């Protein structure tokens, strides 16, 4: 099995002082979906931005370690070049261009592609997300949160990514929509032959589609394994899937959680 992406002992510092990633390692297997899970502030988005190069726009810096894409180090490359090499990050919070129409947003996604591909690719996106087609002349800002997420993913499809970085696609969506989005992510993964690195808070949804998963705390990976294994792992069930043995959590559980967290970290 080959890994498109290998991150080795990555260290990231913001503003020259805040150490956020503390030797993080993970890899994404060619053609598969890999999940990266963790609590708020663990450093998941930072990891994706380090890979896509967007860190440079936030005064963040890779101070140690390596990011290998197709075996070649890419750290230090400008984000616009990284997109051209086939890595596309769908940022947290959708980040669609609200005062552009749906179609203009898709055009932006296709910015690095030859013009001749545009209409074909757009049909493909509308095939994945028929709802976008109905609204294609509408300003993106007036769409619902779910539709905006579809547009954000649609924009990525326009770019023909080889490696798709998805940052919390389920954020703020109703459960039924989460399911729909994850189904489509799976279809994109198979039909576009693109490897997916999926960052999520919704651990259950993510692990059910991921072939491999990593759990991070505080800038490090603390647990990793096959998606199905993680789903049944008691620690994961307790901390991330909210299935603590005794039903509702008591203060004791919380203390226990803290202890476990320390142990895991």
């Amino acid at each position: 099995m080959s890994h498109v992406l290998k991150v080795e002992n990555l260290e990231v510092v913001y503003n020259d002082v805040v150490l956020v990633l503390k030797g993080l390692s993970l890899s994404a297997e060619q053609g598969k979906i890999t999940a990266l899970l963790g609590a708020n502030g663990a450093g998941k988005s930072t990891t994706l931005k380090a890979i896509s190069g967007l860190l440079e726009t936030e005064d963040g810096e890779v101070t140690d370690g390596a990011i290998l894409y197709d075996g070649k180090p890419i750290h230090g490359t400008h984000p616009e070049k990284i997109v051209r090499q086939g890595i596309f990050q769908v940022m947290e919070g959708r980040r669609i261009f609200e005062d552009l129409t749906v179609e203009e947003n898709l055009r932006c996604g296709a910015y690095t592609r030859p013009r001749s591909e545009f209409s074909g690719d757009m049909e493909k996106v509308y095939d994945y997300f028929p709802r976008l087609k109905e609204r294609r002349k509408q300003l993106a800002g007036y769409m619902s949160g779910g539709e905006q997420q579809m547009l954000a993913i649609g924009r990525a499809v326009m770019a023909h990514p080889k490696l798709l970085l998805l940052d919390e696609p389920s954020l703020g969506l109703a459960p039924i929509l989460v399911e729909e989005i994850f189904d489509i992510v799976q279809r994109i993964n198979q039909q576009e032959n693109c490897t997916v690195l999926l960052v999520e808070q919704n651990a259950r949804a993510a692990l059910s589609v991921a072939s491999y998963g990593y759990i991070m705390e505080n800038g490090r990976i603390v647990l990793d394994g096959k998606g199905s294994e993680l789903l049944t792992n008691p620690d994961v069930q307790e901390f991330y899937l909210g299935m603590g043995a005794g039903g509702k959590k008591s203060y004791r559980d919380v203390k226990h959680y803290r202890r476990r967290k320390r142990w895991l970290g």
Partner: protein
Amino acid sequence: MEQYLQLIINGLVVGSIYSLVALGFVIIYKATKVVNFAQGELVMVGAYICFALTVQFQLPFLAAFLITLFFSIILGLCIERLALRPLIGEEGISVIMVTIALSSVLKSLVQLIWGHDLQVYPQMLPTEPIWIAGLPVAPVYIAALILSGLLFAVFTLFFKYSRVGIAMRATAYDQQAAQSMGISVKNIFAMSWCIACVVSSIGGLILGNINGIDPHLGHLGLAVFPAVILGGLDSLAGAALGGLLIGIIENVCDGAAMQLFDIGGFKEVAAFVVLVIILMVKPYGLFGTEEIERV
């Protein structure tokens, strides 16, 4: 009455030039969030370059026009690369100081090369007025209106349909997101400065054809402020309308003040007075966006 119609026509012509210059200002502001205090000086530089080419080098006007555009693009690139890019990420006030410095530098350079005196362009269009609805209008006025209308049409299409135009709007909305799709924000910034320089130069050379030029041409930048604020700092359509309105307001108020109270020089003040009144009613200008509110 007739006199006021005449004033309105003059106002429209001057206003269409304001619109062009305002367009440049708004494009820079929208894309880079820089308030460009050198906008008027860009007008002046363009006017002088075209003057030098037509009068001093005796080139035919069309050639002079095209070379001026080319020069403006180069100027835009240089300004962005040398003066603004090193400041990306710096505080707003430092950037503003740089544009103010830029305006002084450009102005001094022009004075150094061409002196302080009023210079006139050679007469290119017939001076015989064309009669429209019983009013005499100079052909150069009509040409000015047509040229600026044309430019607005071109830029509207550019921002609506071209890949780069759409990318510029995307960058204006969210730089980082634009970057995440492979749009080079640096190139977009450079592009904005080029466009701003080009439209300003065209405004300058139209103005030169009408009034002649002197180093005070840069003060046009002052008149453009009310225009862009009136239109809403970040709206292209607003820039167009704001420019026309300010042009008309200036001329009509000036004429009225002269006729009724025998006060001269009300022109410069009029625009600002109206501006204050409008902003009290609509704080974001006529077309300025706050943010899209989803319902």
